[in-house]
């Protein structure tokens, strides 16, 4: 039983509640066990456990999951102290009802698609309605959680779960069908152990989630582009078929850079493209579902090659993520990009992009510059002397070797902290960094 505890201190705490004394109004019926436990709060905590899951619910403010009250209740039940009842307590019954509704919705999602009928369309509309409600409820919960953090103070985080302080609320967001929010929470979960200045970084992360939740509250009145951004950041997925149905942008697309991101839950590859004629950037995101990119055709695109094809952008602004539609020619080695910008081009396009999507994390950069060392840090300085800090654990030796102290064309990802240089052109040759 105690193996269910998240850590040893929970085990000790639960053992303390293993006696009958703090408990009242308890019972068990079928797979459901419930009880009220006197704690430090004004009202006793209401605890319920569904043995089939097992799943837990408790009104206490503990961040641990399951909390000591749920574990204590289980210990008592295992010792045969909890009496069988015919009817569960009101709160326990309500919790079980909402849980089974959620479970059946999840099951419905995995059911095989059937021929579209009016009835199915109606069912789909109902499901999407249900999801919208669930997401709204989840984001409301998120907003409360965020406010709770600000009220209690970031310094009040218990030492035991500083490195994963947002895991539980992230799990709730998965339940609420907002996986984009859940991933964002998981990314900021370890910030409290990330060294100096962490409160500033954590507050920034909270603020952006807060902004997203508030934007979702007003989804109906947002312009379509921004609405698509908000929905996508929350985690609504637009199907590939729907994207392919949107109007194509045809061009010769030069592969600027390829970056593998080994981020949970699935390793991904980002491929940055730029249209020869339109000058537009595009991003292909590929997932290695089986741990590698075998069988993913687009994964073979390498920097310096060119693809004559139709691209379809996902809804959202600025248009960036895309899928390849029909191809007109085989992928071939191509000339270096024309009209690489400078530091000002990168920063002003980034600022404009943030104006359209304030949650944007990375943005394509294509510029000419020279790697320069200043103190311990390396920068890419353009001919005007303006410079962007370069990210990376190692000094950019390969970039420096190709540059030789002269400006070179570099493609990469710009993000808040600096530029990740991914490709440099050595004469006509694209060299991955």
């Amino acid at each position, binding site marked *: 039983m105690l193996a269910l505890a998240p850590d040893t201190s929970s085990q000790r705490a639960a053992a303390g509640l293993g006696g009958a004394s703090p408990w009242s109004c308890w019972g068990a019926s079928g797979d459901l066990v419930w009880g009220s436990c006197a704690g430090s709060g004004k009202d006793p905590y209401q605890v319920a456990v569904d043995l089939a899951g097992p799943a837990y619910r408790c009104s206490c403010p503990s961040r641990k999951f399951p909390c000591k009250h749920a574990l204590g209740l289980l210990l008592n039940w295992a010792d045969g102290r909890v009496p069988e009842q015919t009817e569960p307590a009101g709160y326990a019954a309500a919790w079980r009802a909402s849980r089974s509704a959620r479970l059946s919705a999840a099951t419905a999602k995995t059911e095989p698609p059937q021929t579209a009928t009016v009835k199915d369309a109606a069912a789909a509309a109902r499901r999407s309605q249900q999801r919208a409600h669930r997401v709204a409820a989840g984001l409301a919960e998120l907003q409360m959680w965020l406010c709770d953090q600000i009220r209690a103070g970031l*310094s009040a985080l218990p030492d035991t779960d500083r490195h994963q302080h947002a895991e539980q609320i992230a799990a709730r967001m998965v339940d609420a069908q907002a996986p984009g929010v859940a991933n964002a929470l998981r990314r900021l979960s370890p910030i409290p152990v990330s060294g100096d200045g962490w409160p500033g970084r954590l507050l920034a992360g909270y603020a952006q989630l*807060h902004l997203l939740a508030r934007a979702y509250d007003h989804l109906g009145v947002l312009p379509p582009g921004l609405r698509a951004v908000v929905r996508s950041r929350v985690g609504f997925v637009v199907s590939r078929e729907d994207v392919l149905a949107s109007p194509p942008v045809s061009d010769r697309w030069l592969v600027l850079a390829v970056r593998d991101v080994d981020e949970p839950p699935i390793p991904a590859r980002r491929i940055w493209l730029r249209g020869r004629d339109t000058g537009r950037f595009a991003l292909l995101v590929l997932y290695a579902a089986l741990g590698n990119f075998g069988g993913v055709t687009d994964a073979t695109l390498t920097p310096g090659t060119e693809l004559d094809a139709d691209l379809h952008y996902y809804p959202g602004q600025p248009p960036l993520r895309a899928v390849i539609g029909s191809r007109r020619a085989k992928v071939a080695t191509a000339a270096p990009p024309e009209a690489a910008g400078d530091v000002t081009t990168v*920063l002003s396009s980034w600022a404009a992009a943030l104006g359209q999507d304030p949650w944007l994390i990375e943005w394509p950069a294509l510029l000419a510059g020279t790697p320069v060392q200043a103190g311990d840090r390396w*920068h890419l300085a353009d001919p005007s*002397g303006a410079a*962007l800090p370069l990210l990376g654990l190692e000094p950019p030796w390969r970039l*420096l070797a190709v540059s030789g102290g002269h400006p070179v064309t570099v493609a990469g990802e710009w993000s808040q902290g600096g530029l990740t240089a991914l490709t440099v052109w050595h004469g006509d040759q694209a060299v991955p960094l």
Partner: protein
Amino acid sequence: MSYADLVAAATVGVARRPVLVTGLAGPAAAHAGVLDRDDPAVAVLDAAALLVSSHRAGVLPGTGMTPPAPADPDTVPELPASAADLLERASVAGPDLLADLLATAAASGYRAPAPMLPALLDAAVKHPALRQAVATVLGARGRWLARHRADWRNAIEAVAPDVLDDPAVWDTGNRPERHAYLTMQRGRDRQAARDLLAASWSEETGDDRANLLAVLAEGLGPADEEFLERALDDPKATVRAAAQAMLARLPGSAFSRRAAQRAVPFLRVEPGGPQYRLVVSLPGGVDGAALRDGVVTTPPSPAIGARTWLLTQLIAAAPLTEWVTRSGLDPQRLVSLPVAEHLTAAVHAGWRLATIRQASPAWAEALLTAGVVAEAARRPPAAWPRDQHVAAVLPPSARAALATALLTGQTNLRAGFATAFVCPGPWPQSLADPLIALLEEAFATGHWSGSPEGLLRAAATRLPATGPDDYATALARMAMFDACPPYWRVQLRRAARDLALRRAFGEEIR
């Protein structure tokens, strides 16, 4: 309110210390009207969202960065991309193969492609044997890049120092620079270089003295004797050893005469009838002068008696010409003479040591051809220099001929393989063919004394990779012999792969 104020409020907690969020800093100020007025926690989050967005969008570029002085333009072309791909594969395969391809590239007038330079410099740091080959393909760009990192710079300077023809280098330069300057001076004017070293001798550290004294080995002559003789009294052992090694190579030196006088009483050639023989007696001990000249009295192995070892030491120090002059016999004859009292190993060990010290090709050839001395088998290298060290005394051009003679004559195969091992590539066909034939025989029967790994590694980079004979196929075929042990198969396939890669590389750049 600044972002720092918001962070402070959020860190403490607005429940513990209430705040009133008003007036935001920067561009966010215009939007302060949207802040939630009822709940301070929401207000903090609202304000933070505004400030974070404006900070993110308002990134300012760095300024005042001066780019490094650019690299000098290169006059030599970069390797073509197809050859560079092969070079990339070779760098994974191992340093020997990489060194060979780099040498081929340099000889054909190419330099390494810029994107490969960091990996090549890293390899030069890791494998000192690669440094020379890497240094030759760096070009102006590579030397420029190497100056950006201390480990790269040191690795390259160790083999290719930038020699500044400026006397100030001698006074102010670092160790490799001074060494390079002295070497240059020695090539120009032997005496001036020696005088330069003598003038600063008392101020040099022990390591510098040993390091710089070795420069005199180039163009060594009788004029250096006096200076070297004084170095025999140096407090630093490595300096004394360097002086002893050089004096031993001066046949007319007082050092050599002393050594000859010490050895002659214990080894003489006796014309007993038609058959000459070597008569040996064992020395009882030596004086302080012998110790000063570098005679080591402690045997390197407990299996060797102290007096036997002393005999070896005395012979090792004596000039080899002494035995030829006294007996009137050439080295070939001398090494074939029987030795009384089972002391063949002791005498031959002395000659082998002397051959290496005095760098005598005639004696090296005689000793390698003479065949095996059975008692020497268990001696450590200090008491029985290995065949390949003896063979290394021969000028590189003479090694292939001797190796071929030893391998085709089949009198002393072991010495033949050892000589081939120190023979620079590409091996002539006259050596490659008998070697392949012997390997074929060995792998067909599965009989080979010892491990062929070293020889196969050498073969992979030194068998000719051009011309009509495809030795890669020959090696790959041997790997399929039934009697070939699995471990050798791996070695053979690796050697065949390396050879094929060298051939492909050569074809790409020709």
